[in-house]
């Protein structure tokens, strides 16, 4: 396996202009990230600013209903309301080390945009967030938060006006302003070294969960469940368990209106290998290689690609694939709200949905990553009559 590849997946499929920027990012990351100074600064922020470690909560009422011990990793309790802040702060620190004062980001649900705007406000950096016009409509609360935090939100009107197009537009900005700008990608996608950097910054989720479950139960879990759009919360919680084969890793993709409807975001389930946004991975594409539009009720999962490492873990048989439809996710959002008093993000609701469709043994220990809170989705929930 060459550097930057996960089996055949990953790589660095970008125009030459970005190559040197990616090389310099990789060099900075390899030099700076392992230093004690960086680690101390990052951990201190995660603890004092983000509020880590997030709790691992035994959800007794849904456990009783499902017939297994269900633990929830509460990433929704992070500052800004989702796991995205872990990566945004890590990368903002890297940008600082590279002497870049202008930050750009793409966002779908707006959680990564808010996290990036937050990190930039904290560190006194300029922040420009690209967001599809359709996502701006359905996530207006997050748009307002980003503006309040001092970021410029640029509406993207090309293509499907969602995360895919926002990502393309952010890459274009980076191509033009690469000398003084750092691009904080929000998921484990994009050209090398992004999938590795984002995974590493998110891997705190799994490391904490492992420690917490050992202390609560004295053993590792049987199953770890996470939703997958690009895959950052999934890789974040999976990474600590990948080498322990006894732990089943379940990746839940958005089936939208159903896997056979053609309107879904299930790149791992239904995609084929191809290149989008700088890396080779499973993609929703037609027989000519044109990228197809993804669909999901949750803006954060509405992306036709997926991280290359997840594609590799799929092919190697290490992860188990599941899906949940829009309807399943909405119902699960209501279920968790009423049963445990936790309103999950619609993204996380996809992961929750499979608790009801998978079969467990009564002594099974399950950890489910609640990647974010549902406040941002209230508009969508109201529209769907929840």
């Amino acid at each position, binding site marked *: 396996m060459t550097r930057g590849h996960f089996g055949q997946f990953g790589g660095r499929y970008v125009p*030459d*202009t970005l*190559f040197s920027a990616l090389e310099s990012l990789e060099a900075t990351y390899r030099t700076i990230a392992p230093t004690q100074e960086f680690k101390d600064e990052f951990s201190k922020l995660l603890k004092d600013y983000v509020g880590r470690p997030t709790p691992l909560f035994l959800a007794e009422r849904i456990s009783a209903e499902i017939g297994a011990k269900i633990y929830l990793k509460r990433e929704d309790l992070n500052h800004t309301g989702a796991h995205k802040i872990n990566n945004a702060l890590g990368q903002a620190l890297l940008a600082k080390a590279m002497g870049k004062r202008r930050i750009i980001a793409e966002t779908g649900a707006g959680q990564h945009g808010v996290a990036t705007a937050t990190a930039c406000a904290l560190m006194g950096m300029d922040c420009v967030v690209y967001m599809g016009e359709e996502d701006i409509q359905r996530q207006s609360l997050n748009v307002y938060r980003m503006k309040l935090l001092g970021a410029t939100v640029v509406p993207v009107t090309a293509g499907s006006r969602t995360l895919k197009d926002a990502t393309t537009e952010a890459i274009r900005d980076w191509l033009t302003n690469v000398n003084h700008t750092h691009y904080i990608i929000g998921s484990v996608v994009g050209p090398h070294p992004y999938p590795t950097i984002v995974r590493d910054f998110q891997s705190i989720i799994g490391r904490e969960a492992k420690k917490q479950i050992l202390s609560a139960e004295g053993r590792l879990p049987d199953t770890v469940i996470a939703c997958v759009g690009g895959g950052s919360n999934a890789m974040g919680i999976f990474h600590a368990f990948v080498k322990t084969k006894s732990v089943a890793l379940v990746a839940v993709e958005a089936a939208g209106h159903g896997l056979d409807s053609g309107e879904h975001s299930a790149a791992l389930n239904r995609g084929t290998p191809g290149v989008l946004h700088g890396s080779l991975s499973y993609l929703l594409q037609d027989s000519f290689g044109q990228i197809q539009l993804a669909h999901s009720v949750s803006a954060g999962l509405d992306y036709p690609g997926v991280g290359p490492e997840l594609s590799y873990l799929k092919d190697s048989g290490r992860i188990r694939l599941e899906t949940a439809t829009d309807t399943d996710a909405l119902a699960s959002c209501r279920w968790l709200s009423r049963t445990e008093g936790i309103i999950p993000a619609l993204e996380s609701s996809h992961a929750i949905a499979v608790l009801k469709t998978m079969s467990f043994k009564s002594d099974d220990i399950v950890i489910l990553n609640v990647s974010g809170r549902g406040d941002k989705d209230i508009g969508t929930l109201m529209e769907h009559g929840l």
Partner: protein
Amino acid sequence: MAFNWFAKSNVLIPYFTLGDPSISESEALVRAAFDNGAGIVELGIPFSDPIADGPVIQASHLRALSSGESPTISAGLNVVQRVKQDYSKPIVFMLSVNLIMSYGVKKFFNDAKIAGLDGVVIPDLPFEEASDYLAASRRSNVAIVFLVSPLCSPERLEQIVRATEGFLYLISTTGTTGARDTMATDLPAFVEKIKAIRDIPVAVGFGISKPRHVKEVMSYADGAIVGSHLVTLLSTKGSSSVIHEISEFAAV
């Protein structure tokens, strides 16, 4: 492999998107471009999500993809096959790597050879990921034209200059494709660096929209690539303006 596309210096290289506004009009434009002084034609195969291109070319791709025709690689090769019956000047494709991957790398280079395609520019295929493509290119004698930007490190520049065939495509500015008022000023020195490594023709693209840009580029490089400017002209004023502009640029 030996490609001799620059027998004459000052080669003008216009770009058209296949299928914008129609496949037959693209074919007519390629022919007319050759008749009016173009030395090489670059034919873009439209892609839904081109990251190296600016808004003008992306919009052109989306127009082509939503025209009701299928402006695919196969359609492009058919155009090449017909034009090459009447013209010997080189035609190169410009396309995103995913289109070739989806078509099949070996099959693409085989079919390209049969159609008479001379070369291919793949902006999002860096040298580091290109080994399968280079092997297929060598077998088929269809050139891979690599792109470099002035940000390229000396080590990579040497590898790319040695790997490219036909010519080297020099990106004149950072950013995506698109017409600009001013162009980067440090390019002549960069071209000298390239020529010191290997005596390969260098064509400059990204940002050329005026006769004075062409004149400036030709003073230190071998060719000038004109894309977004012609695509804009085509969509606003039609093909006769495009052909007129090509003959003006070719006369510089």
